[in-house]
Every structure is written in structure tokens, then in C-alpha cells.
């Protein structure tokens, strides 16, 4: 079965550079979520989109922005990168059909290293 696809899987950037991560949700999934997980930390929710509109917003820095496109894929844009942005970035998708059906399917993550 198709899973959530994230690219790139690994990315190395210098401080103050920009980076873009891409997420391709499972087909027919209309909701996308972005999470950031630093070394040894728990996943932190950044932002989510439903039908191309921002749905929920978490602890996403102002330097970051995201959007969901007409084909439902999403991109997370990060500018003025800092050392602390080094983390695993997970994308998840879902297609809930009502209460209690919002299982999140996570991708394998994109590992960003800022030097």
C-alpha cells in the first residue's frame, strides 16, 4: 500500500540558508500534518492543512512557512536556518471520516542537519 512520501530524506545546510521539505500524502488523504523531532525529544506539532487551508497551528517558528497544493502535497519552507533547527521532520496524512477515525500515517521523515 502507498505510504506517505517525504523528500529529501537527508539534507545538510549552513546557518542562515533556506531549506524546503516536501510531503506527498497517501492518495485520497486530504489532511497533512508536520512535526519536528529534535534529538532525544518528542515530536512537536508544527502545522496542519485540510483541503489546502491551514487547519491547526502549533509551535512553528515565524521563519517557517508551509502550504498544501492542489494535488494535496505539502511543502515546509524554512529560512534563516539555525543550529537548533537540526531535527527529523515528519509529515503525516489522514483522511478521517468522522469522530475517532483520524489515524495519522507518518512518513519516514526528513533529517535536516544545520552546520
Amino acid at each position, binding site marked *: 500500500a502507498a505510504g506517505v512520501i517525504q523528500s529529501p530524506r537527508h539534507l545538510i545546510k549552513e546557518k542562515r540558508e533556506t531549506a524546503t521539505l516536501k510531503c506527498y500524502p497517501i492518495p485520497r488523504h486530504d489532511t497533512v500534518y508536520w512535526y519536528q523531532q529534535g534529538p532525544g525529544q518528542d515530536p512537536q506539532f508544527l502545522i*496542519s492543512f485540510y483541503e489546502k487551508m491551514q*487547519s491547526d497551528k502549533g509551535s512553528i517558528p515565524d521563519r517557517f512557512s508551509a502550504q498544501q497544493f492542489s494535488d494535496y502535497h505539502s511543502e515546509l519552507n524554512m529560512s534563516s536556518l539555525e543550529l537548533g533547527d537540526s531535527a527529523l521532520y515528519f509529515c503525516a496524512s489522514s483522511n478521517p471520516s468522522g469522530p475517532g477515525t483520524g489515524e495519522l500515517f507518518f512518513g*519516514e521523515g526528513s533529517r535536516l542537519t544545520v552546520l
Partner: protein
Amino acid sequence: LAKTTQPISMDSYEGQEVNITCSHNNIATNDYITWYQQFPSQGPRFIIQGYKTKVTNEVASLFIPADRKSSTLSLPRVSLSDTAVYYCLVGVGDTGRRALTFGSGTRLQVQP
């Protein structure tokens, strides 16, 4: 969003049953309880979800008391491959689209 509290770590041996309890005192009426499993450097994986009483699937059972202020994930006969971090999340809401917030999970170590 309801805050959850879980034990930081647990140890077990292969073949034993493991029960991980999560407290969520301020759970909302329309919140569901969901458990995820995460291996190092991998995305979390859905284990089980419930609203009240007991839910069972092929890998785990979820026990939720009537007041819903806590829940217990039960893993029968664990194996070494069950060594992972387990997260209890509360949310989802009426539409199922509300983002889930991960708290501090429980690191389960299964030994031979």
C-alpha cells in the same frame, strides 16, 4: 488540548504482558485516546484508538475506565521488537482532523 502523563520508562522480559497507563484528567467530551509506537529515527506508528470501555485489535488492547481520565495500553506477550517509545495522545475531536500533540512517551525496553 488535554495534557497526558505517562511513566518515563518501563522494563519487561520477552513473553510478558506489559501495561502502560496514561493519565489525562482534563480530557474533553469529544476527545479520543490514541496510542502510537515509535522506533528510533522512524515516524510514529498507530497502535490503537478508543473512546470508552475496551478496544482490542491484533496487536494490543486499550482499557478506558468510565471517567475516561486515564487509559491503559496492554501489550500481550511482548518480544524484543516491541522495544520502542509509546505515546498516549488525546484529541481528534468531532471531525477527526484536529492535530494531535505528543507528550513525553514511555520508553519500553524488552529484554531476553
